[in-house]
């Protein structure tokens, strides 16, 4: 093509976007060089390799096992270890995402392992963004790259979750709930960082919202939470949500074509799995708070503990429901507890690394003016509670000063009470 005689071609050349920046180019080249060094081209022709492999490993399984061992050895040594904890901009980050993580991905065989791993990768991208934001180094370009990688992993996780749900609904419910709660926590963190210099978060928030909207069909009714006296019984119908605490996709045994007796066993098993997960998450969050209390301050720690009190109440409620053979409602209570505990863990860790107070709302007036501006897929009408205290403790009268203050959880500023049926109650909890 002769550009001198083709003005249209010249026009397009002028319209061409900028090429790779020098740093981007050298980083990409280094990554590809590492990749090719790690995976060299075999010296023997393929046919000869196949013949040798068959002679050494008559059974294909032994060959696979050997490959797994070799990969495990690589993953556990040297470069792989050194690349852990790296973030975009670090020299070995390309090795981490281009070499180490794909190897680890290849080692995940079961749907459960694959789903959990892809969720781990997705959350890992968000953690990297948080780390960079704490250093004032989360640029728009880096943020977009992380958002793209996050979206890919989240999509892979969604695909794996569908398979896993059929095979192990209890574990699928736990993973789905914990994952959604983590994302909700990070979304809160990123939205709170919107105006902080060196912390571009718009693309990440959009990516999380896109994931939530795609995952909407998997979620059951949302529940409302507020701090209550654990010994008090609250009545009322499920209404709206404090937060996109999507209930786990509790498997319907009837949908799986099982008998009534088997259905009850399956539902109980799911509830027990959720119970274990909720209790563990609660304990983990308590431990995290205790660990970082001196860093985040007593006020933040107290507010976090207050929310965990709500989670504890939900666990106790679920345990009571289990005793009274209402496994479905118990599952929902445990889901609430797991969601709160997981989200609090994310917020408290972010509070430590980003030096923010995640429980002070700098945009209270904005949300009060438009309480239905939730970005999460609400599945029910919102009914403001007459009780105004909130699980996230909107500090409407306490300006937060210069720190990046986070908004309260998504949705309503005045979430309704946690609903739970105790013996003798007539109304069904959580809108059932």
């Amino acid at each position: 093509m002769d550009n001198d005689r083709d003005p249209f071609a010249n026009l397009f050349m002028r319209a061409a976007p900028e090429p790779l920046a020098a740093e981007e180019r050298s980083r990409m080249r280094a990554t590809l060089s590492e990749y090719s060094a790690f995976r060299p081209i075999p010296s023997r022709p393929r046919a000869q390799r196949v013949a040798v492999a068959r002679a050494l490993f008559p059974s294909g399984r032994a060959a696979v096992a050997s490959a797994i061992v070799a990969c495990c050895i690589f993953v556990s040594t040297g470069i792989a270890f050194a690349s852990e904890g790296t973030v975009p901009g670090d020299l070995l980050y390309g090795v981490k995402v281009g070499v180490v993580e794909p190897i680890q991905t290849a080692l995940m065989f079961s749907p459960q392992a694959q789903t959990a791993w892809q969720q781990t990768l997705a959350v890992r991208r968000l953690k990297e963004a948080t780390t960079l934001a704490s250093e004032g180094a989360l640029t728009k370009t880096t943020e977009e790259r992380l958002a793209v990688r996050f979206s890919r992993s989240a999509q892979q996780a969604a695909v794996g979750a569908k398979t896993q749900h059929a095979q192990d609904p209890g574990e699928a419910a736990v993973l789905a709930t914990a994952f959604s709660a983590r994302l909700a926590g990070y979304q809160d963190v990123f939205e709170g960082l919107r105006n902080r210099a060196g912390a571009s978060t718009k693309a990440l928030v959009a990516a999380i919202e896109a994931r939530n909207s795609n995952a909407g069909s998997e979620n059951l009714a949302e529940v409302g939470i507020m701090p209550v006296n654990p010994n008090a019984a609250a009545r009322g119908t499920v209404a709206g949500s404090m937060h996109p605490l999507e209930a786990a996709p509790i498997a319907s045994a009837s949908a799986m074509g099982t008998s009534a007796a088997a259905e009850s066993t399956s539902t109980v098993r799911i509830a027990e799995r959720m119970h274990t997960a909720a209790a563990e998450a609660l304990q983990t969050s308590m431990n995290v708070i205790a660990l970082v209390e001196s860093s985040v301050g007593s006020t933040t720690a107290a507010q976090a503990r207050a929310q965990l009190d709500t989670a504890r109440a939900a666990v106790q409620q679920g345990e009571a429901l289990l005793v009274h053979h209402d496994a479905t409602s118990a599952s929902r209570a445990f889901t609430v507890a797991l969601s709160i505990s997981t989200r609090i863990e994310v917020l408290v860790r972010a509070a430590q690394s980003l030096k923010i107070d995640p429980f002070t709302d700098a945009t209270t007036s904005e949300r009060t003016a438009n309480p239905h501006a939730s970005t999460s897929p609400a599945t029910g009408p919102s009914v403001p509670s007459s009780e105004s205290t909130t699980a996230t403790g909107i500090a409407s009268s306490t300006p937060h000063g210069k720190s990046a203050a986070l908004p309260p959880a998504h949705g309503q500023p005045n979430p309704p009470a946690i609903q739970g049926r105790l013996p003798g109650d007539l109304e069904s909890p959580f809108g059932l």
Partner: protein
Amino acid sequence: MVQSAKESYLEAFDLYADALFRHAQLRLPSRAQAIDLTQDTFIKAWDYLRGGGTIHHWKSFLYRTLNNLIIDEYRRSKSDSLDALLEADLADATARASTGSREELEAGFDAAFALERVHAVLPQLPDTDRSVIVMRYLDGLSPHEIADVIGISENATSVRLHRALGKLRKLCEPFA
């Protein structure tokens, strides 16, 4: 001295990385995705070599690989349905705008004005049209090379290019 595979590979990177990246930028919604797919293109190329394949023509191989990755990306983000809608909307415009030779269509663009408009309207084209325009006028691929990349005949490539230019001109007309 025979060049090693790795030397050829890295030389191909030095030669084509920027061009592939610019191509990807014009077809993808974000710069970040363009960087990722550019890197993925070279990773796939290495995997191909490692699997016993031989690459005789790096340029067409890399463009073909990138093109497939971009198509996969669109399928993943369900953009195909949007492209299809746009395709349908432009059907009438295509019929009207495809009159005249390619030279006449190209000359119809006011250079100074269209530069700005190209940036604005190019993303509005369906990817199937955008890809041939970018490959021809940005990447400098011949119709034969483009046909090789996207897997259609050279004749069909020329037709698609002609129609894509017509659509591009039609999109630019509201700004004239």
